[in-house]
């Protein structure tokens, strides 16, 4: 159901970004970029209190009139951002969580690949497939 899925590295540069309406990619890039601020804010807020126990799923970062942005951060400060079209039937939180979980799993698979250097853009067919599965859901 997502319209855009992005994986952002620890240093806040994108490792992977893909959106469904390919024509409007730049807009989504911008959205994801701005959402990083919110992510940072959430990380810093929770980080001190729980330390490593911080919840990975950040939830709805911020909504706009067109879409909603959800965030998820891993323990290695790699961020996943999903942009969802608001006009879509509002996805339940659980669904978003499961999407993030799937992303996280395939991301770890990519990391397990010794030929993939962390910090390089993700070029993995399996990962692409997973993302496509999520993007395509939005018809």
């Amino acid at each position, binding site marked *: 159901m997502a319209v855009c899925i992005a994986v952002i590295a620890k240093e806040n540069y994108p490792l992977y970004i893909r959106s469904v309406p390919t024509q409007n990619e730049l807009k989504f890039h911008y959205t994801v970029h701005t959402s990083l601020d919110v992510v940072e804010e959430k990380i810093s807020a929770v980080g001190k209190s729980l330390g490593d126990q911080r919840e990975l799923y950040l939830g709805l970062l911020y909504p706009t009139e067109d879409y909603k942005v959800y965030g998820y951060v891993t323990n290695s400060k790699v961020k996943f951002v999903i942009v969802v079209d608001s006009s879509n039937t509002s996805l339940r939180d659980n669904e978003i969580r499961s999407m993030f979980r799937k992303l996280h799993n395939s991301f770890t698979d990519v990391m*397990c*690949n*010794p*030929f993939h250097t962390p910090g390089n853009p993700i*070029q*993995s*067919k399996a990962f692409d497939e997973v993302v496509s599965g999520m993007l395509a859901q939005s018809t």
Partner: protein
Amino acid sequence: MESLTLSDVEQKYYSDLFVYCDTDNTKKVASYGRVLDLFRAAQLPSEVVIQITELCGATRLGHFGRSQFYIALKLIAIAQSGLPLRVESLNSVKDLPLPRFVVGKNEAEARHVALYQDPDSQGLYPASAAALIPRPPGRGHPNKKVPPSASAHPLHEAVQPTAPSVETQQAEPTSPVVSPHQSPPSSPPSWRKHKRQHSGGNADRQPVAAPTGVVWTQFREQQTAPVSGDGLWSSHSPPLPGQESWVSFTADTPPSSTVPGAHPSSVQESTTIRTTMAPAAAAATTTEVQRQSSGYDDPWKITDEQRQYYINQFKTIQPDLTGFIPGSAAKEFFTKSKLPILELSHIWELSDFDKDGALTLDEFCAAFHLVVARKNGYDLPEKLPESLMPKLIDLDDSAEVPEPTADVGFSASPAEVTPNKSPSMPSLNQAWPEMNQSNEDTAIVHPVPIRMTPSKIHMQEMELKRTSSDHNHPTSPILAKPPEVSEEVKLPVPATMKFVPANAVGDGYSSSDSFTSDQEPVARQRSQSGASPEALKVVAPPPPPPRPHPSHSRSSSLDMNRNFAAASAAGQPQPAAIAFPPAVPPRPLPTQSSVPHAGQRAEAEGATGAGAPLTTTSPQQIPQQPNFADFSHFQAFAASEQPSSLPEVDKHSDPGQGDKSSDGAGPLRTVKSDGQADERTTTAGHSTKGSSGPLAPPPKPIRRRLKSEDELRPEDEQHGPQKSNIIAAAMATQPSIPRSVGKDKKAIQASIRRNKETNTVLARLNSELQQQLKDLLEERISLEVQLEQLRPFSHL
């Protein structure tokens, strides 16, 4: 079952088919699924098939026995020749052509047909036609796809009434030389060509004489293709074993007519074509007919030699064949192949089946194979081909295929690799039989089960962690007593600190401190001894929450209590007193024998004085006071082996006891005198107890102390008798407590139970004492009020 007479050819054919269908190798019953596929391949309408099944008696029996199978085959032949299905016709029809089954592998069909047809001229042509016709379609069968569809193929293929056995015999590549001239063309061109043919062939499904011409033309085309491929292949040593066998077969076959001749080439070609990767399908198909491997069309199969090579390479990295190659090592290794990193990454994704970042032998072979394929120009598949999937297959015997240089040396330059690839390509496909060899050397298990190793290790680690944590965890219940003792021994120290400011009595505390400190090593020793039996335990239940140490000045008291509890059923409310005695005795005794007396008294006063603040601080501390005092007293008395001190104490104790007895309230009586008396009595109690037996039997003094405490505490009077009984019991069993540490679970569980009971008793006592405290406070307030009321008057 009607008797069935079969001609020799028929007999042979049928028996071969039966063997083909006899997947379970029962020699008696043909696999039902296989039989059904066979029947479907006969191109008969389903009703006919059903009828045949019924006629042959299989429906009656429920399975296809040999005779049923033969009858069914005969009926199929009858049906195919257009005759009505009758039981009588089984034996009456003469010169019945052999049943024809559409086979995917044209070559196999052709060959088989040729074999059988030769002696049976009648059936030759139609059969061959049938065989030929289906061949192109079969040939064109897309090998690219992972052969899930291949399941249909083997059936098609297998059934040809050729000499599958002959084929199998031929499986051994006899002469590489033969292959060259049959070397299949490189896949892409041939593939395309055959695809075209395929579509053409499909139209020619039905065995009709007419299409034979088409077939022939196709053959010719195919033949040209192989010719072109000859050059390619001639340089390649590992001819498809199938090819070889095929070739040898044709050579051996007396009736080596053009048909068989054409068949081999076409077969080979088709096989080649069938497999994008490699040619070898032809022979492979024939052999496979027998082998009946699942992916007979699979171009991704690994040949024996290849696999052996891969295994050798694996060994160079990881000598243990059942072990893993870590990702980094694999990366280095595969980087040597000079493939782009992206492709290597993709190969890794495909081959790391369990996604663990390491390669098992199977995964490594698959990865290696993919690298080889890629180096030879074949595109990487999107998904891991079935034949490369790590799984435990052992379908067919492995045919030895000479693969001289099939192995790709990664150290070699790409140029070298390329030529190697070609030979390896044929070998790739050659053996359907080899397909299963993928498992031959390796204990190949489905990747998931293979994970056993890491998970096992993980489990072991967990075990270790658990056991170690049991060791280390001070509050582990299993490690129970000793660690608890140690832990609580440590706790009392801070607890005692609380009392220090409260009581402002140094001696008593010091004595108690020393006592506790003394006790600690002992406790530790106990814990150590207990650790070993605990270590034996695999799983330690989560350690119970730390005991309410603040409530007890000396956790050791609890420990002692536990010790008793281990021995006895009920816990004692005076654990402290009990706890200490066993621990320290000797050291403080001499020093404290006299001092404690005074100190204790002072303590008592101090304690009582501080009773109020103490009580306010925590009700639990109140009982601790007496405990504490008891402890110190006990310590003093226990240590003291001097009867001289004892009599003094006795004197004190007597009046003390008397007071105490008169005082219905427990030691908590905030009335100072009471408190003091309490202390004294406790002291006395200690002294008396101590006098009885200094330290020798720690239980004894403890027992006495407990008893005295019972007496001293009226509130406990109710429990007194019980307690004394309990205590006595505890005492009796106490000596066994240290031993129980060394005992096995049972004793520990018993001690746990006892401890729990002690806990409950203590909790009850606590509540009662708190209640008393409240009452006392009320009294005190009322008294103070009265005092206030009186005072003004006095002032006046």
